[in-house]
């Protein structure tokens, strides 16, 4: 069977020059056009070099096929070309080279609430947005109640959406989009908005959609969503196709490529310039480094249950054997949910030390729920709080299939290994 979507040697070149010129007025445009021959005559090498620099390939020779009913996740770092690829497939912008063959009705969802007008009511926006996304009026009418129920906005249907809370707005917008019924659905990172509960609901809806035999192309930074929803995955790096395979393999490839990045120094924090600190002795805390399994640096976040190894560099001004490092993890509400302190270590080395030191805190499995956590770091010498930095760093925990069931953990603050089994009931025969 022929693939429903064929992407053939697709390239897209952006002229940065054009982007820079885009605010030029007509006079400047004429001047640039008229002086072009003169500049060309003067034609130094430098000018040509500059022209070359002004172009860049957002996509370079990307080819892959999508079979009917397949759900393909597209992953890559920011600027890897994911959005450009979706924009070309959705026909928003033309490719520079190559072609895309589409064999089915297509709808794309690059943003939640495209075309929503703040002055219009919820009801009016459902119709307008539906039409913009390619639904027929009759189709919208028939799905209207379903959309309203999904969005949970019954009471506010006749209120202009400018009075909606951002949560309601997103729910309504997503509800419309979720009820699209194309053969091919193209979805950009739209689940990054809204509250967690609603994100779950959207993921559930997406799941339903993909089980319905529809072909879906899905861009997300949420690796758990990619692993759960997608059968296959495509990894883009610097506009090129870096990997293609099952979604699990693709996520693995992507995470590996992230931690393999040698040029990135995001996992190292220099503390010597931090002025916002409470130092009874002096700015002794020097540096923090974050690593995960096999000493790979932590760059974009840690999956639930992954290892977190924090190296703390600091100075001891005087010889002492009584010093400790503390690390406090606070959630977004400012609640301390975990404190790691070196005095809890039963096997710590004893003896007097002085000068630069490195203390390593190794957490074999960080079982926090996905979210952002801020760190407080402090150094105690004797009974004195020698140096302390609040909010020294942020740790992002991202979703993963922690329990190995294909289901992302939900609700609560942390995960724990636990088991369920059935026992014979006492009164059973």
């Amino acid at each position, binding site marked *: 069977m022929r693939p429903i979507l064929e992407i053939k040697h697709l390239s897209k070149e952006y002229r940065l020059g054009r982007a820079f010129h885009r605010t030029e*007025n*007509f006079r400047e445009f004429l001047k640039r056009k008229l002086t072009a021959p003169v500049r060309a005559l003067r034609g130094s090498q430098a000018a040509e070099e500059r022209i070359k620099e002004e172009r860049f390939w957002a996509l370079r020779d990307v080819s892959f096929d999508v079979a009917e009913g397949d759900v393909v996740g597209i992953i890559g770092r920011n600027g890897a070309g994911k959005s450009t690829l979706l924009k070309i497939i959705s*026909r928003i912008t033309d490719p520079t080279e190559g072609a895309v*063959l589409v064999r*089915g009705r297509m709808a794309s969802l690059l943003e939640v609430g495209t*075309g929503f007008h703040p002055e219009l009511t919820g009801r*009016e926006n459902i119709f*307008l947005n539906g039409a913009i996304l390619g639904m027929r009026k009759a189709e919208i009418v028939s799905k209207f109640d379903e959309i309203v129920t999904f969005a949970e906005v019954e009471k506010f249907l006749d209120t202009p959406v400018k009075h909606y809370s951002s949560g309601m707005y997103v729910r309504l917008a997503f509800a419309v989009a979720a009820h699209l019924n194309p053969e091919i659905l193209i979805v950009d990172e739209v689940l990054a908005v809204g509250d967690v509960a609603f994100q779950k609901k959207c993921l559930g809806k997406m799941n339903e959609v993909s089980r319905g035999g529809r072909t879906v192309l899905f861009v997300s930074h949420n690796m758990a969503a990619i692993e759960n929803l997608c059968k296959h995955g495509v990894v883009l790096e610097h506009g090129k196709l870096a990997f293609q395979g099952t979604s699990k393999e693709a996520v693995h490839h992507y995470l590996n490529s992230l931690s393999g990045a040698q040029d990135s120094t995001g996992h190292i924090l220099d503390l010597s310039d931090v002025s916002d600190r409470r130092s009874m002795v002096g700015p002794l805390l020097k540096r923090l480094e974050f690593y995960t399994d096999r000493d790979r640096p932590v760059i974009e976040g840690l999956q639930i249950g992954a290892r977190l190894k924090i190296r703390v560099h600091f100075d001891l001004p005087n010889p002492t054997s009584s010093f400790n490092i503390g690390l406090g993890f606070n959630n977004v509400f400012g609640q301390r949910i975990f404190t790691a302190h070196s005095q809890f270590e039963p096997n710590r080395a004893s003896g007097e030390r002085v000068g630069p030191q490195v203390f390593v805190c190794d957490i074999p499995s960080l079982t926090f729920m996905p979210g952002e956590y801020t760190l407080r770091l402090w150094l105690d010498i004797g009974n004195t709080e020698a140096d302390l930095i609040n909010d020294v760093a942020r740790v992002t925990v991202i979703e993963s299939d922690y329990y190995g069931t294909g289901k992302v953990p939900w609700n609560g603050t942390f995960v724990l290994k636990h088991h369920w089994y059935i026992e014979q009931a006492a009164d059973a025969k």
Partner: protein
Amino acid sequence: MSSFELTIRPRKGWQPVDWKEIFLYRELLAFLMWRDIKIRYRQTLLGGLWAVLQPLIAMLIFTFVFNRLAGVKSDGPPYPLFAFAGLAPWTFFSTALSQSSNSLVANQQLVSKVYFPRVFIPLGAVGALLLDMAFSMGLLFVLMLHYHWPISMHVLWLPVFVLAAVLSASGLGMILSSLNVSFRDVKYAVPFLIQMGLFLTPVIYPIHYIPERWQMLMGLNPMTGVVLGFRYSLLGSTASWTVMGVSLGVSFALFVLGLLVFRRMERRFADII
């Protein structure tokens, strides 16, 4: 898998207009017009009354300044009727032109995030104003009753001239809106163009004030024919079919040119807007 097939590839140069697609998306054009109508007078006290107040007040001022003070005469009917019959299509044209030339930039989000025939954006902006035009036509009939001015069979021609006004506003609107994507100069040029246009079109003065040999030249301004045609079909004024014919031809040509220019430029909209 449906029989639907589509190939996306780089486009270069002039493109034919995709009528099939426009037909497929026709409901969206109606929705965009409906949106513009809904939004235009939201949160205003007078609402749709603005549609008739604008030409009405302009008519009163023009009657006072040009008719009473400067002594400009009409070509038959009372001057207020004469002026209003010209101002109604002119107000439509000038509002339509300024709205449509700004429409792509005002709808950036639609251009860069979703696909549909882009041409609906300027066309919808023009189409939405037809309702205003209907309101001011209603007011004109009230004025005719007031002045006991009879309506003639020429009124059957009115749709032709309404169409000509729509075609010329959309034609220019398509060209200017696509230019506006790259050059925001358009925003400043359009009000100026409209101001000049009012004097180059026989709105406040009858065309016979212009020497006959120049009248053909005025016909090249499509709105000349529209204004003459409105007076011809509503007030029964005499008018030269040669001049009106030239204008009708120009408005049709403008529309076709607008479609083609828009088609040629639209593929770059999302990249530069």
